[in-house]
């Protein structure tokens, strides 16, 4: 599906990384490992076509990503390491906005169970701004369920999560893979999650 070929990126004439090759096929989990500033986020942004590669190319479904961008965006969810939920609104409102904005085909019961597993179902009328950092992070992952897309692109999903939540993420990941989905995520620690491909930056 997604193939990255000999990708190199330079910024201000300085090489960030060179010759990255990876392929993301259904049921695949790829991890990007590396220290801070090694270019994990840059690589993810290049995959999202936000950053022009200096050399090499990215393909989606056999076509150049640039030519097939709209289709790719329709199949991918990106979660950055920021809080994209609106802080002044309640969890319920946020979920509603996402559900409508992404034209989600998920029904309310599924969202409720997801909220339950994330242990957020008691705070539905609480404003996001009053939640703890870990909780907002978990709320962010709710978007993965709501958007219900094949390719997940996650930037540092496991930082700031407790062990229970990491365990939960593990299960979610495996679940997604068994449904022919594919995941690429970055991490600076060893997550202990089963991955099919590991890329060191």
């Amino acid at each position, binding site marked *: 599906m997604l193939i990255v070929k000999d990708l190199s990126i330079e910024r201000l004439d300085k090489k960030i990384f060179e010759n990255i090759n990876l392929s993301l096929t259904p049921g695949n989990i790829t991890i990007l490992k590396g220290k801070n500033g090694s270019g994990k986020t840059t690589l993810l*942004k290049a995959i*999202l076509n*936000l*950053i022009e590669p200096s050399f090499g190319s990215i393909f989606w479904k056999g076509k150049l990503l640039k030519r097939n961008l*709209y289709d790719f*965006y*329709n199949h*991918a*969810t*990106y979660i*950055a390491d*920021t*809080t*994209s939920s*609106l*802080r*002044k*609104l309640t969890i319920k*409102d946020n979920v509603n*906005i996402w559900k*409508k*904005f*992404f*034209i989600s085909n998920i029904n309310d019961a599924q969202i409720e169970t997801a909220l339950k597993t994330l242990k957020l179902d008691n705070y539905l009328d609480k404003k996001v701004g009053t939640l703890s950092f870990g909780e907002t992070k978990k709320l962010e992952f709710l978007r993965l369920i709501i958007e219900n897309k094949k390719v997940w692109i996650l930037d540092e999903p496991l930082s700031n999560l407790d062990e229970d939540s990491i365990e939960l993420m593990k299960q979610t990941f495996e679940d997604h893979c068994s449904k022919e989905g594919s995941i690429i995520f970055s991490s600076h620690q060893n997550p202990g999650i089963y991955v099919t491909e590991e890329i060191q930056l």
Partner: protein
Amino acid sequence: MNFLNKIIFFYYREYKLNMSGVQDILTNIIFFFVSIFIFIFSIGPDKQTISIIGVGILWTLLLLSSTLSLRKFYQEDFENGNLLIIHLNGFSFGLIAILKTFSHFLFVQLPFLLSIPIACILLNIANDKLFYLFASFSIGSLILSCLGSISSSMNLMNQRNFLLGSVIVMIFSVPVIIFSVGIINMEESFNSLINILFGILLIVFAINPWASGLCLKLSLENN
């Protein structure tokens, strides 16, 4: 149609976002009125003078108050990553710029437009000028929204000098002010002046998606 739904729900999102911070909009309007009071008191009780410079005061304050809310334009959505999410949902940056401009007009400028009649009473502006005021202000504030979009997208990554965005809006709004104040003072040439204003609106409206879109993309690439 799928995409039309997306646009409608983009505005649903904007509506929710703005209503959650409705006190910000109200504060803007309070700023507008308090400034009018200050103008009236600093000029003195001469009703004649106030009614002569009233239109100028209205325009200055509209400009100032709409530049006050410039940082709300893209900055929040940029910092919390929503801009990227919207883009990934199939909106090109140019389209985001256009939609956001209309949203700014709806939620920030429209309240001003609605409060103009009250401001007119305070500033002793004759009732028969109300139509001209509305005509020039509705086009002018749309132009201000477009300019605001351009300048605030330029200054997304500008961490040091917040005022620069306002200066950019103000310097480009000089022709707008010239012509729209002209409408009030020269009612006989209303048609051609409103056409000029409309022409300026079309130009900034056409430039807006390109300039803002490019700046948005740049800032998202590099933050």
